[in-house]
């Protein structure tokens, strides 16, 4: 009998430490499935961030290095210069990418580093226990803004796709979400396009994946999925900001 579905062998045989309902596991699996389908697993090199996914090498079956907090794009750019045919990608949370690593992400985009970045935006610092992120929404509670993020102190949440797409060599920029089956299918296509951009040497590819952190949002997983639709997507609109003809 022909199997209709198989768990990707690119995920290592290991139970993840992620909380129930966390989007990290979904994102990992999508990236691994895409790499296998593209025949690029063997040449993939991942730079993992400081955040809940720092030990993603326990789960993703690709060569991997843990980066100091926020520095992943520069680390990946160093790797890519040594292995120009590699499928090199960074996997970063919002604290890592938008806060402490804001400079590296902008300059990698500006230089048009031929790498992919998968940006897990869960609007909170997961690993350190729910502090405010640059992407925390106005009014949203976090341990360091217990009354909710306020405009006076912290200004508006950062929309990274909108910022990155101002760099001409960030040729592929798309925001997707991981909260419904339909969104997850779109996300997989976006991940595939990002690797295709890299393969064709077109420039920098940036995919933002709106994600859930039920634990630090203080919600049941199902509620958290709804919250992505209700609260995140209105402020962080899904869609393609830039996409080269070659991969459309």
């Amino acid at each position: 009998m022909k199997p209709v579905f198989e768990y990707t062998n690119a995920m290592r045989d290991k139970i993840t430490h992620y909380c129930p309902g966390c989007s990290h596991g979904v994102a990992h699996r999508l990236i691994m499935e895409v790499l296998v389908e593209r025949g690029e697993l063997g040449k993939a090199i991942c730079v993992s961030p400081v955040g809940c996914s720092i030990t993603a090498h326990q789960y993703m079956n690709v060569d991997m290095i843990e980066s100091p907090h926020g520095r992943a794009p520069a680390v990946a750019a160093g790797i890519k210069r040594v292995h120009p045919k590699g499928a090199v990608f960074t996997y970063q949370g919002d604290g890592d990418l938008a806060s402490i690593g804001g400079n590296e992400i902008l300059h990698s985009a500006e230089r048009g580093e031929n790498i992919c970045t998968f940006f897990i935006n869960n609007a909170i610092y997961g690993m350190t226990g729910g502090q405010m992120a640059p992407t925390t929404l106005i009014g949203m509670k976090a341990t360091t803004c217990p009354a909710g993020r306020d405009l006076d102190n912290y200004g508006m949440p950062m929309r990274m796709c909108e910022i990155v797409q101002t760099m001409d060599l960030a040729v592929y920029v798309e925001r997707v979400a991981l909260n419904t089956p339909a969104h997850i299918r779109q996300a997989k296509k976006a991940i595939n396009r990002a690797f295709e951009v890299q393969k064709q040497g077109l420039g920098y590819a940036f995919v933002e994946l709106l994600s859930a952190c039920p634990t630090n949002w203080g919600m049941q997983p199902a509620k958290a999925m709804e919250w992505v639709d209700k609260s995140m997507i209105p402020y962080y609109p899904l869609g393609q900001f830039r996409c080269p003809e070659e991969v459309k």
Partner: protein
Amino acid sequence: MAEKKLMKGNEAFAVAAIAAGCRYYFGYPITPQNEVPEYMARELRAAGGHFIQAESELASISFIYGAAAAGARCMTSSSSIGIALMQEGIGSCIICELPCVIINVMRGGPGIGSIQPAQADYTMVTKGGMNGDAHNIVYAPSTIQEAVDMIYKAFDVADDYRNPVIICVDGMIGQMMEPVVVPEFKPVLEEKDIEKVKPWALCGHKNKRDRNKINSVWLDHTELEVAINERIWPKYERAMKELPEWESKNLEGAEAVFVAYGSTARIAVEAMELLEEEGIKIGLIRPKTLWPFPDAAFDEIDKETTKVVISVELSMGQMLQDIKLALEGRYPTALINRVGGMLLTPNEIVERTKAVLGGMK
């Protein structure tokens, strides 16, 4: 014999790295080392290499962390406050056992400090700077030729120990010109051979082996203790046996011994000659490695004649502490120093030496 060329220190450092097979340089501008990146920008690409002006020193050391993990010989350079900014990355290279070479052309500090030559990064480079139990291997050349030879060798030492190697010079050696012989160009490790030479490197597993992981976080802290005890420290114990280098001069019959490194050692030698003319015999120990510090050099001091060991340095006695540890109380010590970017002159050293000796009578 190879031809001698008149070269500026900073440019000679860059040539030495290219000769050693380094094809990856990443750096951020800072005085007094700008000629290093500028030379690399002109020459490295022509040599088939990669030069990137990084957006910050944080990025420079992160490029290094990536390129070293990918298996390449790579180098960055900076000065004092820029090296301070790199510390998290340097510590990460150490625990991840990633070889790299870093040139620190020292200037005055702390803070932005001054752009004049200084040696006040001694403690930062030899004792840490980075968090955790870690060491850099540190060379301190006193001529441009010696710097060239040390940089040339540093890439092999870094690969052997899988640890960062820092070449610590001051702005004077970076900026002056001297004749140098550039060593023979070594063959470059090609991308296709990295896997064989560095099986730990990230090259992609090609569906042929388990994935390589390079990690610096330890969720099980007992494993971190094991890593430090069983992987990092045995290397340092070997380094302490194999690497210390020094030069000594006129120790026999010396009334006092100067300990000085880098450009300060050159000025100390001039002061020794002036003192000799006045009948005061001074010896010299010139550490060429600052870590591991050449403790054994101090066993050669003349017990019969030496009354005091004097650290001559451009910092507030930072090296003096290592001298005291090496002496284990065998001799009194003294300090002759200037700081903040001020230099010692031979005459000043002469006068201050006489004061030290006078105070001992």
